[in-house]
């Protein structure tokens, strides 16, 4: 569904992405992991068209995304730090987003709005929200349009245990519907029962991309967090 071929991006001297090749197809739940500053968010932002890669191309359903924008109607994106216009209320924001994407005749998915109880604080201003509530709004917006692809950048960071459990269940539910889900996270224990594939990045390089069974076999560990830890030490040793 999403294919990147040889994309590279430099910020000044820093190489954020170095010749990344990645294949994602629907039904997969892919975890993007790696140390801070390894290029995960840059990769996600390139797929969204927020960042224009220096070279290489990204295909969405076989179509090149440069100079295209319609493909984004099939993506629900939850940013790492949701930044919203300060003097808008939650209600305004939801209304505006619905209004902007109204022409897509899809059923709205209000499940997260209800289970996060955002309905009860529709007239709160975005500037007065706590970080966690802001995350809830971001999550609700990402799932709202029933998109075929969900891109979640650190989805559970800042959420309380109850909310992150709700979100996890929602992710599993959407995965079973055959959607493609891309997650970046540091909390590996959380990903255990979610993901089917692991992509490990370091310093802008894609170190490996495997299914979770292969990874566990490869490292002879049963826990994902231990398997990845082993992998990271291996990668450091190889340097």
């Amino acid at each position, binding site marked *: 569904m999403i294919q990147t071929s040889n994309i590279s991006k430099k910020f000044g001297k820093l190489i954020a992405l170095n010749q990344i090749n990645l294949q994602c197809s629907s039904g997969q739940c892919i975890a993007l992991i790696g140390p801070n500053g390894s290029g995960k968010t840059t990769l996600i932002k390139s797929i969204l068209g927020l960042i*224009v890669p220096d070279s290489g191309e990204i295909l969405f359903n076989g179509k090149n995304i440069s100079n295209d924008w319609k493909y984004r109607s099939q993506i629900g994106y939850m940013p790492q730090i949701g*930044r919203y*216009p300060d003097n808008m209320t939650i209600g305004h924001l939801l209304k505006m987003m619905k209004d902007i994407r109204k022409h897509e005749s899809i059923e709205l998915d209000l499940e997260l709005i209800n289970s996060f109880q955002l309905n009860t604080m529709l007239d709160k201003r975005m500037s007065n929200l706590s970080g966690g509530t802001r995350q809830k709004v971001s999550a609700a917006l990402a799932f709202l349009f029933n998109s075929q692809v969900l891109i979640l950048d650190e989805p559970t960071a800042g959420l309380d245990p109850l909310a992150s459990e709700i979100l996890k269940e929602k992710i599993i539910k959407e995965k079973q519907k055959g959607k493609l889900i891309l997650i970046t996270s540091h909390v590996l224990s959380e990903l255990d029962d979610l993901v089917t594939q692991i992509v490990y990045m370091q310093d802008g390089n894609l170190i490996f991309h495997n299914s979770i069974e292969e990874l566990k076999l490869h490292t002879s560990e049963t826990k994902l967090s231990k398997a990845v830890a082993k992998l990271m030490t291996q990668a450091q040793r190889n340097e």
Partner: protein
Amino acid sequence: MNKLIKYVIIDILRNKIVLAYTIILSIISFSVFSLEDNTAKGLLSLLNLILFIVPLVSIIFSTIYCYNSSEFIELLLSQPIQRKQIWLSLFAGLAVSLSLAFLLGVGIPLLCFEPTPTGLMMIIAGCLLSIIFVAIALFASVLTRDKAKGIGFAILLWLYFTLIFDGLILFLLFQFADYPLEKIMIIISGFNPVDLSRIIILLQLDVSALMGYTGAVFKDFFGTNLGFFVALSALVIWVLVPLQLSLYVFKRKDL
């Protein structure tokens, strides 16, 4: 696209600055006209005030607004909307609300006290100036991510157009006083939208005699219908060029 413009305008109007700007403009206009018993004199004082305040407020407000709506732009960019649409909606929203403020603040008093072609001309020039400086502000703010730098650059541009440019011209005129510069002055004046508006309105006021021989040459050129349309198109170009440049940069920007 229309929806986006609607949301931008709602957002700007919720911001009290534009309202304050409208009120200040109308206080200035009404007081200028009631201070002077000769409306032509009043018009002249108003002209100088407008050429000073309108560009300043338009450029500073738009630059700050652009930086403050970076969250809004980011949010929209991950939605299925063209970058061009987002940028043009931002421009249209700013241009409409600042022109509206000018129309209410200066347009109404002008039509009350001076319902002549000159008054009308001043309204058109003021609106165009507002829009031109919105476009220049968009260009200044797209160039750098740093808010302080962007606003500083905007203020510099305003200083250039209202003060420094005139100083440079005076310098040139004195340096080349022995040469006939009148025709070249017409072209040079096209490089500054503020000067261009001033000339168009001054010629309407029939005080061009005060500007000496250059004024006569100006009158010969800008006084004709052709010259007037050239001047108006020059002002429109002053909107389009910065807008296109900013759009070009914005389309390729990493966010």
